[in-house]
């Protein structure tokens, strides 16, 4: 109960007029940044750091502003996913799978409202997790050595087969393309160039944001150009529908939300996995557990609730290693960490004792920000859905140009813009050929880490490959991957429901 009284102290720190205003500002800017393609939580926080400097804010208010931006961006990413099929940032990727089909069915408002609630639940309980479980979870995170990470990433790729069920071979091709992209650049494990062809722009690899924005946003523009004439029609039949989620729908999604919150939070706690893995695992496992009628991917509300609860829970989870270990679990927390250091706060094992006011003020601010975001997002749904009323001939040029600015404004590199166009064309062709894009992004996001984990593990063990199964945790992850996702593919379709049941039992306790 010590935690609760510390939290109460935290609220007295956070509940000042100035801090509330900063939280509101942060939530608002964060939501917009999250919704804009190309600008995600990490870049959003990074570009607002100068603002915190300019305002001359002391540690706690500065952190309140920036974490509100962080949570806001996690909320905002879903907006463009659902309305335009363009993920605003990488954690919102999975929301496109069922969110956009829902919008097409005229349920855009419901999808937005539901995902807002799911985001709230994920973030809310993750923040409680941060309050009570931080020390415990740190010891869990320490169990993950390279071998365990490799098993975890393998598990993530194994679940792909379930996500893109239409043509497994094409999903495999897509994942291979993505992982292939992640191998471009200087190889940190050996210090040599790979696939750079002497081009200095490729030395530090290809930013996955370019892949996301190119494959989704730019290719969408091409699709509209192709269907010009018919294209106007496709938008007109998007009815706005209701702007709240019916209670029955929320009830139906409660299971999905709670499972995803736990999974997302755990994924967030592991440094090196992060929010995108959280939303991905949440979606794919939810699909495996409850997609009896094969409605996932066709606008199933649970397919919207699961990844949104998952990625917001992961955002909260990622704060655990950042605060308790000083290890960023995601790109955003890396930026927050740099900010903390600049404010003379050293995150790490002693942070909770040395700067309790900062930590608990921050946690209190997360609760406040989260409630503000819910309060702000639900009424704003009716405003967001109006985006669909803008004719594509005005909307699409704006989307294209915002995508370009999102990329150029961060890296300042025109080379990245050429790449972006290239990814746009590739995305267009892959869509035409019915090759799923999600595995490409997943490969780009996680491929590099997967390879590095493998090589680190085998390097530490001096070439002894058995180290990959060297701990009960690693064995457990492999068993889960094989029994839950590989075996069903091999055994065949008619056995599927049976196995899905058995994994449901396992799914409750993945460790």
């Amino acid at each position, binding site marked *: 109960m010590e935690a609760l009284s510390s939290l109460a102290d935290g609220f007295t720190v956070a509940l000042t007029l100035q801090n509330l205003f900063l939280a509101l500002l942060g939530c608002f800017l964060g939501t917009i940044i999250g919704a804009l393609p190309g600008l995600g939580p990490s870049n959003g926080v990074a*570009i*607002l750091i100068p*603002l915190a400097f300019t305002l001359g804010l002391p540690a706690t208010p500065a952190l309140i502003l920036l974490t509100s931006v962080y949570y806001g961006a996690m909320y905002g990413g879903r907006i463009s996913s659902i309305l335009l099929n363009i993920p605003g940032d990488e954690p919102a990727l999975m929301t496109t799978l069922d969110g956009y089909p829902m919008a097409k069915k005229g349920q855009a408002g419901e999808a937005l409202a539901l995902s807002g609630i799911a985001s709230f639940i994920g973030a809310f309980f993750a923040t409680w997790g941060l309050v009570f479980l931080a020390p415990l979870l740190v010891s869990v995170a320490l169990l993950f050595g390279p071998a365990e990470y490799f098993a975890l990433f393998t598990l993530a790729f194994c679940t792909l087969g379930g996500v893109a069920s239409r*043509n497994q*071979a*094409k999903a*495999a*091709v897509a994942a*291979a*393309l993505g*992982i*292939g992209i992640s*191998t471009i650049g200087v*190889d940190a*494990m*050996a*210090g*040599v*160039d*790979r*696939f750079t062809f002497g081009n200095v722009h490729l030395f530090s690899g290809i930013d996955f944001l370019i892949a996301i924005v190119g494959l989704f946003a*730019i290719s969408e*523009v*091409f699709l509209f*150009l*192709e*269907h*010009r*004439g018919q*294209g106007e029609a496709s938008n007109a039949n998007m009815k706005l529908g209701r702007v709240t989620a019916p209670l029955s729908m929320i009830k139906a999604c409660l299971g999905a939300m709670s499972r995803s919150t736990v999974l997302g939070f755990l994924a967030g706690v592991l440094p090196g996995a992060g929010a995108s893995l959280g939303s991905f695992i949440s979606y794919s496992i939810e699909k495996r557990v409850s997609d009896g009628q094969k409605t996932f991917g066709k606008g199933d509300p649970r397919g919207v609730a699961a990844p949104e609860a998952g990625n917001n829970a992961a955002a909260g989870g990622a704060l655990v290693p950042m605060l308790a270990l000083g290890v960023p679990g995601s790109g955003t927390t890396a930026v927050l960490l740099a900010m903390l250091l600049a404010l003379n706060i050293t995150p790490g094992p002693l942070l909770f004792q040395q700067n309790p006011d900062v930590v608990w003020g921050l946690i209190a601010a997360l609760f406040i920000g989260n409630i503000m975001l819910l309060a702000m997002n639900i009424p704003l749904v009716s405003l967001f859905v109006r985006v669909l009323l803008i004719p594509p*001939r*005005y909307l*699409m*040029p*704006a989307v*294209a*140009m915002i995508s*370009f*600015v999102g990329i*150029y*404004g*961060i890296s*300042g590199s*025109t080379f990245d*813009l*050429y790449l*972006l*166009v290239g990814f*746009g*064309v590739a995305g*267009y062709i892959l869509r*035409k*050929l*019915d090759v799923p894009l999600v595995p490409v992004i997943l490969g780009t996001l996680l*491929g590099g880490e997967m390879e590095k984990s493998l*090589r680190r593990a*085998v*390097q530490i063990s*001096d*070439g002894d490959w058995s180290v990959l199964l060297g701990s009960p945790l690693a064995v457990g992850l492999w068993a889960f991957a094989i029994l839950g996702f590989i075996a069903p593919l091999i055994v065949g379709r008619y056995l599927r429901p049976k196995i899905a049941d058995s994994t449901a039992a396992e799914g409750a306790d993945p460790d």
Partner: protein
Amino acid sequence: MSDRIFGVVCLLLAGFYIYSASTIELGFIETPVGPRAFPYIIGTLLALGGLYPILVPDERPDWPDMRGMIEIVFAVAVLIAYAFLLEDVGFVIATAFAAALLGWRLGTPPLRAAVSGVLISVGIYVIFHLILGLSLARGPWGF
């Protein structure tokens, strides 16, 4: 047919990727898994995945007609020209032109397209540069 071509492209790409991987210099420290091994695995996966659509192709996708194709090629050209000229003419002008051209091709009457292009460009400039403080390309006139 499209799927077969796609499969062949995957095979060629896998071949090129594996060939390039074989030319990666090995690191100076000897490690059990070098920089080539993982690309070999991925290349093989890509090749195997590429075989499938060759053997079992899906139905022919709905490719655009000549007009659609020209539209897309034109848009790609506009976007490449945008990237090429961005730093020389500055953000606002380049963006206004690109947005106007895209809007025009999407069916906006030319004059309205021009106006919407300018509005999009200035709007983005205000949000990204003036509010968020990102440095966008400064042309000879500073914007």
